[in-house]
C-alpha cells in the first residue's frame, strides 16, 4: 500500500526578524518563499510557505499564521489547467 504523503499547508506567517526566516526554513519539510517576503510597517515581516501540518501546530503557538490552502489540493486544482494534448501537433 502506498504511503500517503504528509499533508502540507500553505501559510502566511508574520515574523519580526530575518533570522526567524532561517530558523523556520531549517525545519524538516518546511519551505518558505522569500520572494513573497514583505516588510510591513518597518518591523513586521510577512512571508508565505508550505509547512507540514505537524509543524504548523508548533509554529502556530509562536507566530501569527494564516492558512491560505492545502498544498496538494491546490496542485490538483492547478493540474486541471494543464494542457493534456500537444496543441502544436494538432494543427
Amino acid at each position, binding site marked *: 500500500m502506498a504511503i500517503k504523503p504528509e499533508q502540507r499547508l500553505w501559510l502566511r506567517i508574520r515574523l519580526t526578524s530575518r533570522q526567524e526566516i532561517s530558523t523556520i526554513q531549517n525545519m524538516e519539510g518546511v519551505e518558505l518563499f522569500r520572494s*513573497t517576503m514583505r516588510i510591513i510597517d518597518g518591523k513586521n515581516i510577512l512571508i508565505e510557505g508550505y509547512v507540514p501540518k505537524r509543524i504548523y501546530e508548533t509554529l502556530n503557538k509562536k507566530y501569527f499564521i494564516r492558512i491560505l490552502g492545502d498544498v496538494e489540493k491546490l*496542485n490538483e486544482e*492547478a493540474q486541471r*489547467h494543464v*494542457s493534456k494534448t500537444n496543441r502544436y501537433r494538432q494543427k
Partner: protein
Amino acid sequence: MPFEPYLNVAEIESAMEDAATNYPSLCTLITLPNLTYNGKTSHAVKLAAGSATKRPGVLFLGGTHAREWGGSDILVAFMENILAAYAGSTGLTFQGKSYTAAEIKRIMESLDMFIFPDVNPDGKEYCQTVADWRKNRRPLSGSIGIDINRNYDILWDANVYFDPTLTFGYLYNPSSSAYHGPSPFSEAETQNIKWLADTYPGIAYSVDIHSSGQKLMYVWGDDENQSSDSTIAFNNAAYDGQRGLPADAYGEFIFDFDHQKVIRTANRMYNALFAVRGKSYTVGQIFNQVGVSSGSSACYMFSRHSTNPSHRKVFGFGIEFGQTFQPVPAEMKNIIDDIGAALVELCLCASEPDLYIRDSLADSGVEPSAGSLSASPDIIVRKNVVADPATEFGDITVDPGSDKVEIGNDNYIYVRIHNQGGQACDAVVRLYAAPLTTTCAPALWNFIDEVDVTAIPAGGFKISSAVTWPNVIDPGTGNHFCIVAVCGNTGDPIPDAGMIDSAGDFVKFMRSCNNIAYRNLTFENVLPDGWAIIPFVMKGFRDKKREYHLMLDGTALPPRSRIELRTAKRWLSAKTLKLEDMREVKARGLDHESVLRVGGKNTGVLRNVRFPEAAAPLFHLHIRISAEAKHGREYPVQIVQGHDGEEMGRITVMLRCIRRDKSPYLVLRQDGRVHRAGCARVQKARAIALMPYPDLESALRDGYKVDPDCLA
C-alpha cells in the same frame, strides 16, 4: 497559440520547433548538451534578424522551479509575439502598453535573444502530472532533487561565505526543497545555462523568470550594494563569514555606473509592466527584496566577469510574477502581458546606444576590456587642424598615432567614438590632459574642453570635430602627455571617476567602463649611440597596501643598448625594495638621485615601490640606443606600472633612430633650440645632449625654437 490551458513540457518543445520551422531566418533552435536525469534533451532558441555584427545578447530563463509553470508560458508567448510582429512589420500591444513596429525591428536587428523557456522539464512534468514540486528530479543521498537556482557557482557554500548567525541548513539537507546539490554546477540544468553563457559570449543581460511575489529585481543578492570599495567583494576571501547582514560594514561592490544602469533598466521594465493594466510590482535589489541569495542565476551571471575578466559583463535580473505559483488561467493570461511588456522593455534597454572609446585596437567595446589600457587608438593629437578627419582617421583598423604635443601653442585633439547599440545617438566627449604617467589617476587630470558629437550611427563610429587644446603648458614632463577621453549621453552617462581612490579601483574602473580611454604614447628622435630622456610621473592612490611595481621592457632595442631609471633617492630608499635584473649604479654629481640600470637583456622589474597618496614622483627614463640601431627604424620601450600582480597602466616610448648624416638639424637639450648640424656648439656636444631631426619643420612641430645665432 492563445494561452489556456498551461503549456505542458512537450508543447513547450514543439513551440520552439515550430518557431524555428516557421521563421527559419529569424529563429534558430539550439540543442543543449546536457540531458536531464530523466533523459530529456533541452532546447533554447536564438532570435535575431539582419546582418549586424557585435550584437549584445539577452538570455531569458523560465521554468527553473518546477511548480512555477507560467515562466515557460510567458517566454513562449514572448517568442511567438516578437517573431510574428517582426515578420508582419507590426507593433506589439500588451493591453495598455504598445510598442511600435520600428521598436520591434530595432530589437530583432540589433540583439541576439536567447530564450530557454523550460530549464527544468523533469520537475515541471512531475509537478504537472503527479504532485507539487520545486527541484529537478535527480535522486541523491536518499532524497530526490536539487534546487537549480541554488546550484550556480556564486557563494554556493553559504556556510563559508555568510555571517555565522545566518543558518543555511536547508541548503545542505538533500530532503530540503532548497538543497543546493553536492557541488556547484552539479546539475545538467545549470550546466546547460553555463554552456549558453560560455558558447554565446555576447550575452550581456539575463533575466530569470520565477513566481511569486510581484517583484522585479537586480543584482546583488548576498548583501547590500556599495560602490565605494572594490576590494569588498564576493571573491575576496578576507570577507568570508561577514556577508549577508543588512546595515553592517560589508556591502557587495558594484561600480556606481553599473548600479545606476541596473536600477534604470529595472525601473523602465516596471513602468512598462505597470502601463499594461496598473499592476504593482516592487523594484529593488535582490538582497533587499528576498534576503540572502546563494548560488542563484542572476548573481552568477553578473559575477562571471569578476571571476574571469575574459567574460563579458552580464547584467542579471530576476522577476517574480503573480501572487501564487499557478495563477488561474484568466490571471495568467494578464500576467503574460505584464511580463511580456517588461521583457520587450528590457530588450529596448539592451539595444540602446552603448558608447565606447577603445583602449587598444583589439578592444571591441565589451566590458570588461582586456589587453592594454593606455594605448587608445581613438584619441588623436595633431599640431594642426586636419582638413578632412573623416578620411584621415576613417580606417578604425589603423592607429593614426599622435603628434608630439607642441608646448606653448594650440594643439588639436580628435576622438573616434563608437556606438555598439541598435540606435543612432548623440554624445558629449570630455578631454583631459595629464603629465606622461604610468597610471593616469584622476587626480592628475586637467580639463581641456568638451565637444558634442552628433548622429553616431548604430553599430558604427563617428570622429569628433577638432577640440582645441589652447596654449599648452609643460606639465612637468616636457611635451610628453597622457590624454584622457570620456564620453556619454543621457542613456549611457559619463562615468564618475571621483570614486577612484585605490589602485585596485583604478584598474577595475578602466577595464569595466567602456566610456573612458586614454593614450600614453610618446615619440623621441635619437641618434645611433645617442640618448633619449623621457620624464614621467608615477601616481599613488589610497590603498591599504601602497606597493607598486615598475617593469621596464626594452627588449626590442638593438644589442648593447642601455636603460637607466632615475629619480629622487627618497622614492627608492625603502628596505623592502627589490630589483630584478636591475642594479643601482653610482653616478657622479647625482647625490640626491638613485640611478638604476637595467640588465643586459634590457628588461627588469622594480618591486615594492612605495609612496604616499598625495605623491606623484617624477622619474626619468634614460635610454642609450647603441650604434647598431638602424636609421629610420622605431624601437619601442615600455614602462609598466603594476599593483597586486595586475597592470595598472603603461607608457610606450617610440624611439625613432636617425643617423647623424641624415640629421641636418639637431636640438640641443640644454637650450631646447634647433641648430644646424655644422654648428660649433653641436659639434662640441655629447650625443646625450642631442636630438636629431631630418628637417627643420618637424623640429618646429615638436615645439622647439630655432637658435637665432645658428639659424637666422
